């Protein structure tokens, strides 16, 4: 008989090694799935996890791309983790990402074709501010009228998508674009372009911002009073109130910070890798970041690793898709398995497995 026994404290050891377990379990289950699809499972797994990093044909290009793909995920997830720890559920990072991108892009395009060093910093500020203000809508509504921030922030994503479509077709449309939707390409506007800082490294300002955000979040959680309040509010809301934590201030801080970080991610993406405001500019980073935040156990450094791992499965998945003909849906199922196993092995962190006979009365 196998019995699960709750641990008094989540095990530190298991917290650290369960992600490795999950990755191994995903490889096994995914390998079986690929085999059933008639693909060589070892080749498929190698293509997903090894080739983007070490294949001599691709790695020089795809290794830097890992940073490009992971940066917005890490930036957004770090912000979300603060709220999630405090029990403030910002599900609408995708919307804040869009509004941040639009605000920043609008500032940049307003200066076109002026070249000056202050344009990009202004865009960064506008991007953060745009995301911040968009997150303040669910924040203020929650504080003033006790609305549910999950619903409000999520529904505002759809509003943001319509604003994006309207901007791509109207105010921000490239006047020299032959009537087609989409803004000017920032690649052709050096002062506003978020270029690679070091050639061929994938390192752009968004990656730098992501690393800074991770460090700041770590310091906040471990050293700062606000971090203590966040944890307290999440673990023991009543105690937090007696302890003098102002819930309204905490809600606004968590939503505002995550909104600003999501806005920054959008700005760095639109002015760099994406290059332009287009109707379907957003590809779900705001939602994927929720997964990344939990994969990383809401821990800033965990999120850093989780973001990179997620990026690896995306890029490796693309390689597997066209090199081996694995259907895109199978790749998505593979990513889903990874999340599934990570959450499943959590049992080992919180529970101890006991083998033995149950006593019969």
């Amino acid at each position: 008989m196998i019995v699960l026994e709750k641990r008094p404290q989540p095990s530190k050891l298991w917290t650290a090694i369960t992600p490795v377990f999950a990755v191994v379990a995903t490889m096994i289950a995914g390998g079986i799935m690929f085999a059933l699809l008639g693909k060589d499972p070892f080749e498929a797994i190698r293509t997903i996890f090894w080739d983007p990093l070490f294949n001599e044909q691709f790695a020089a290009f795809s290794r830097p791309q890992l940073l490009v793909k992971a940066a917005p995920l890490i930036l957004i997830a770090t912000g979300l983790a603060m709220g999630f720890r405090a029990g403030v559920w910002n599900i609408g990072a995708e919307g804040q990402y869009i509004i941040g991108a639009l605000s920043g892009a609008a500032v940049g395009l307003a200066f076109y074709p002026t070249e000056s060093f202050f344009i990009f910093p202004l865009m960064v500020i506008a991007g953060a501010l745009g995301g911040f203000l968009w997150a303040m809508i669910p924040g203020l509504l929650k504080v003033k009228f006790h609305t549910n921030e999950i619903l409000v922030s999520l529904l505002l994503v759809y509003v943001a998508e319509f604003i994006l479509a309207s901007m791509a077709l109207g105010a921000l449309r490239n006047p020299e674009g032959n009537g087609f939707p989409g803004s000017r390409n920032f690649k052709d506007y050096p002062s506003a372009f978020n270029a690679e800082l070091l050639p061929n490294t994938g390192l752009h300002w968004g990656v730098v911002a992501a690393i800074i955000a991770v460090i700041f979040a770590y310091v906040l959680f471990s050293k700062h009073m606000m971090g203590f309040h966040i944890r307290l509010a999440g673990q023991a809301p009543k105690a937090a109130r007696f302890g003098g934590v102002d819930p309204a201030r905490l809600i606004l801080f968590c939503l505002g910070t995550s909104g600003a970080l999501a806005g920054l991610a959008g700005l760095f993406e639109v002015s760099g890798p994406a290059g332009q405001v287009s109707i379907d500019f957003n590809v779900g980073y705001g939602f994927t970041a929720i997964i990344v935040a939990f994969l990383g156990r809401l821990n800033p450094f965990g999120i850093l690793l989780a973001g990179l791992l997620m990026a690896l499965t995306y890029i490796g998945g693309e390689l597997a898709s066209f090199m081996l003909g694995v259907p895109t849906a199978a790749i998505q199922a593979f990513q889903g398995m990874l999340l599934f196993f990570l959450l499943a092995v959590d049992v080992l962190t919180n529970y101890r497995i006991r083998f033995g006979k149950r006593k019969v009365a």
Partner: protein
Amino acid sequence: MKRRTILAGAVAALALTTGAFADGHAKTKVGFIFVGPVGDGGWTYEHNQGRLAVEAEFGDKVETIFQESVPEGADAERVITQMALSGADLIFTTSFGYMDPTNAVAAKFPNVKFEHATGYKRADNVSTYSARFYEGRAVQGHIAGKMTKTNKVGYIASFPIPEVIRGINAAYIHAKKVNPDVEFSVVWAYTWFDPAKEADAATALIEQGADVILQHTDSTAPQAAAQKAGNVITFGQASDMSEYAPMPRVSSIIDNWAPYYIERVKAVMDGTWESTDTWDGIGPGMVGIGEISDAVPADVKAEALALKDSLADGSYHPFTGPLKKQDGSDWLAEGETADDGTLAGMNFYLEGITGDIPN
């Protein structure tokens, strides 16, 4: 610039591998970038049929690779680059949103040939190609105008780009010609493929009294919605969608990319590939009209086929004056036909269409 040199190194390495192909030993590698899943039953499905036709035509001499459901943005550039790095000789990028990414990657891989569907930016190693779908829309409009009893035609549009607007205009003027009372309601779905959204749009239009649904989106969801409602007719889009015939699907516009893909792959094999701009219609066979079902009366069917023949042999142009723009200003004088430049950038409705193009 260092990036460029490193990539150039990769290109040189590729040139070595493809050097073997000149001896006739290695296969020609052809890549395809798809915007939807290959099983969408519409746009991507037909491009994939074209890919399969290339394989069938050249057999062992060719290897095709493809990536489905590639988002039109930063991800596209990465996927196209990886495909070029994998040694592709020719890459077809099959959606408008891949225009800037395709050209950006092409600049880094001068020895790889690129073909971008429905765009307007070309380079020495980038061709563009598209089909004159609006010719098919004219036939569709004719049947729609004859068949509607409520005089209300619903139109599920994707994005307000010239290709889509051209289709609405072509369908409208030909419906109006045979039925002066006809009205068009256009719903913008802002997607090429989203069965749930397309079904919602179709249902909403049917509830507003439309008994003909035209679609410029790729899934069969509107067909299913029309079938459920009964007494509503539809047309297959991009693909024949014949599983919904004879009702609600009474005909279709079929994209037939196979001849073009085979021709271009052959050009790469022969070393005669050049950057071109292709825009073919019913005549050369790039646009097909699917079997008109028995739900359409015989006389209407005969008229529609006659219209199709006149489009195929070039004796009739779908945009022939007199035509006015929506605001009442003159566009084409009596007997004048539209030039390709204006059609390519068409961003206005013609007289009689209600509503605004979103912007």
